[in-house]
């Protein structure tokens, strides 16, 4: 449709564009720019070309942080997406399970800070819920300083993440499964297919787009994960739970390395964008191949 005057569309867009450009686009360009400088944030920046990137790629803590976030992503694909899918299968299999679906979503809306502080208590070796449980089943020797132990800290965070987000993926899969036409599953049931078979062989392939998006969210969201890591362990003990984002914040705000931190930001952002791009390419291809 033609606007009544040439300028009105721009007037409509102006407020949104102002906030978005000022708060996001401009700083994003600034971050890329800053990544080519050695800068403590106060003195004159020194142009260093790609040296910050070279340093990042040789920084063992930074490289390890990608390893950690990789473990986290793989663990959460199982603890969040897979469990969410199984829960959705159970909840949609018969009537009367809706209250579970509604209840399991609760942690998704609570502040991560609240959840992190609560779970720090749950893992507490002196009075935590896990310690209480191990005492109750007569295995107090199994107790550990969970978040202070290199062997357990990262797994503990993955576990909490699963506790929060399984309900989120349950909600997403539930919405997807509701859209599978009843005729198809009923026809299969009449042909004598068992309900678990109908779920895995018919419903799950049909909601392919839903679990593809879920995997994408889980992977790209995982790479950006910060709050849980920062509050529960702040990267410790001995960098065992350091992820790219916590290391970035440490570099910029504790070590005052604005330039170096910016290069880390650019690397992490690129990783997220590349994964998103590859996903959209793969999806375009598969959409051509199978259209249900």
């Amino acid at each position: 449709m033609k606007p009544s005057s040439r300028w009105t569309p721009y007037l409509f867009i102006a407020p949104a564009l102002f906030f978005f450009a000022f708060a996001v686009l401009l700083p994003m360009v600034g971050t890329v720019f800053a990544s080519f400088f050695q800068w403590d944030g106060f003195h004159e920046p020194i142009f260093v070309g790609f040296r910050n990137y070279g340093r990042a790629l040789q920084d063992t803590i930074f490289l390890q942080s990608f390893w950690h976030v990789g473990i986290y992503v793989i663990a959460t694909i199982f603890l969040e997406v897979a469990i969410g899918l199984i829960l959705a299968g159970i909840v949609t299999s018969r009537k009367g399970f809706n209250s579970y679906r509604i209840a399991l979503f609760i942690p998704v809306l609570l502040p991560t800070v609240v959840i992190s502080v609560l779970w720090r208590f749950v893992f507490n070796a002196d009075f935590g819920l896990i310690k209480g449980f191990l005492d109750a089943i007569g295995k107090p020797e199994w107790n550990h300083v969970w978040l202070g132990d290199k062997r357990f800290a990262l797994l503990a965070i993955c576990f909490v993440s699963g506790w929060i987000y399984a309900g989120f993926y349950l909600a997403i899969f539930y919405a997807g499964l509701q859209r599978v036409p009843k005729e198809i599953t009923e026809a299969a049931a009449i042909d004598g297919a068992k309900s678990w078979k109908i779920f895995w062989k018919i419903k799950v392939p049909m909601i392919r787009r839903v679990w593809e998006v879920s995997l994408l969210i889980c992977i790209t969201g995982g790479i950006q994960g910060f709050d849980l890591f920062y509050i529960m362990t702040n990267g410790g003990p001995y960098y065992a739970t350091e992820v790219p984002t916590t290391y970035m914040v440490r570099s910029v705000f504790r070590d005052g390395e604005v330039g170096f931190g910016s290069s880390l930001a650019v690397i992490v952002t690129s990783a997220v964008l590349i994964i998103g791009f590859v996903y959209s390419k793969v999806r375009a291809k598969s959409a051509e191949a199978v259209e249900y």
Partner: protein
Amino acid sequence: MKKFSWVFHLLLSIYSLFFAAPLIWMALSAFKGNDEIFDKPFSLPHSYNFKVFLDAWSVGGLSKYFINSALITGISALVVLLSASLAAFAFSRFDFKGSKQLLMLFMIGLLLPIQSYFISQNKLFEYLHLKDHKLSLVIPYVGLGIPLATWLFKAYLDSLPKELFEAARVDGGSDFAMYRYVAAPLLKPGIATVAVFTALGTWNEFLLAMIYIQNESYKTIPIGLLTFSSRYSTDYQLLFAALTVITIPMIIIYIAFNRQIVAGLTEGSLK
């Protein structure tokens, strides 16, 4: 057909127990003194004294954090709703030069992680003296919410029949009148969704709040709670009470509006 019902019930019950245990433990511990928290983690508290919630709320300063969060959340959500719906209306309904490129710019924002810009944003806000004010967080939160809000609103508007707008045009409606009297009323379901994810995102946001707010009296709930937890680091009863006081009202609101809230938090990711 339905003979395995009890297996599913059992599985779900076990999972729910594991799921609910920390939350129940939190609420019960708020009524227990430190010795009771240490010695009897599973028992019911021997008395229920609700005064501890009042202590957390007023003495601990939660009320202050709550007011700050409410103010920033309300303003941010309003600005996002207004500016994103205006922009979405223009993108959805008008032909104009550069509309594709401008839309692309917004869509980039859908993919950008906060890490891609917060370092320079911090420097920019420092330079412009925008940090550490009562409303400092509104600008970054609005910027954060706009891309998805614009995109969702545009999707809603795209699905409306164009005859609606053409009829209004024939009746002599101006561009703004069409937004005000045709588009805006039809956006209602979209408004609920966008309001929910903007408001919850703002209410819970942690990283930017931590960087931009140092002044105790401007802190929002997430960073306020962290301050609280280091200040009263050994008063576990008070800490459990604080967690409970923040959590319970959110759960009550969620139960009342669960359909809208689930939709608000999942719809954006499905599209």
